[in-house]
């Protein structure tokens, strides 16, 4: 059981290093999903939210880490 938990922790660690970064990325993806569902006639809007959201999250998270 302990080995399984360790393996799962390691697996999660492949994708999550900083919880705030992971949560922010998921929030941006969810927001883009909402735009894609609510405004299917403007698909570029969802794409824009996704692209600029991810780039903004990266910049904000890296700068926040330097201030800590």
């Amino acid at each position, binding site marked *: 059981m302990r080995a399984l938990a360790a393996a799962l922790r*390691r*697996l999660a660690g*492949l*994708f*999550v*290093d*900083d919880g705030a*970064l*992971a949560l922010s*990325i*998921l929030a941006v*993806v969810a927001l*883009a*999903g909402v735009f*894609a569902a609510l405004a*299917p006639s403007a*698909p*570029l809007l*969802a*794409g824009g939210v*996704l*692209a600029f959201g*991810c*780039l903004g*999250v*990266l*910049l904000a*998270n*890296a*700068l926040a*880490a*330097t*201030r800590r």
Partner: protein
Amino acid sequence: MSGAAEIGSVVTAVFLASSVEAVEALTIVLAVATVRGWRPAGFGALAGLAVLALVVAALGPALGLIPLRLVQGAIGVLLLLFGMRWLRKAILRASGVVAPHDEAKAFAAALGALHEQGARRIAGADWLAAVASFKAVLLEGLEVAFIVIALGAGRGLLVPASLSALAACLVVAAAGFVAYRPLARVPENALKFAVGALLSGFGLFWTGEGLGAPWPGGDWAILGFVAAFLAVGLAAIALARRADVETSR
């Protein structure tokens, strides 16, 4: 993007990412070989590679049974998480916030642990050494397997992606075998930075495709995303360094 350009971009991304992971695994395998000999080191490494081959062989084709849009969406999000994690780490290391990964130090630490096992004459020390080698190859290899499956399976490029990963591992192994010391001179952080941007670019593209958002320029948008992640990453490094200088005044 043409077929050749698509294969080229996937093969390049897989090769570079696999090289970074292979260097980290090689450090431990070399430490085991230095202290306990090549037999346990080689046995553990080969066993790790066999398990990884099984993972790719089992999971890769299974993804073909799931609708493409769903696979692209799920893999896109995972690639975003994985790639941006690498990119963030590379930014923080390049700006001096986090200490850079030092293969020579990792090698020395592994040597110390293995020498301690030998000094205490632990029964089955060779077996423990083989397990250390196996674990290093398996854990670093899991990241390689994810990259191979994520970049290769969604587009039917599993074979070129697997061959690219294998080539990267062979090149790193050959270099390590010749040098017989950890590859400390490999610019690991620069590689991690570039690969993080590549994987994030692919992840962004596929997440959008999964959400049903068509990108201007089709597949060529991937190059634009990679360039954007590189630009934001470089800007983050410059801003972090400036903030560091202002704080130390």
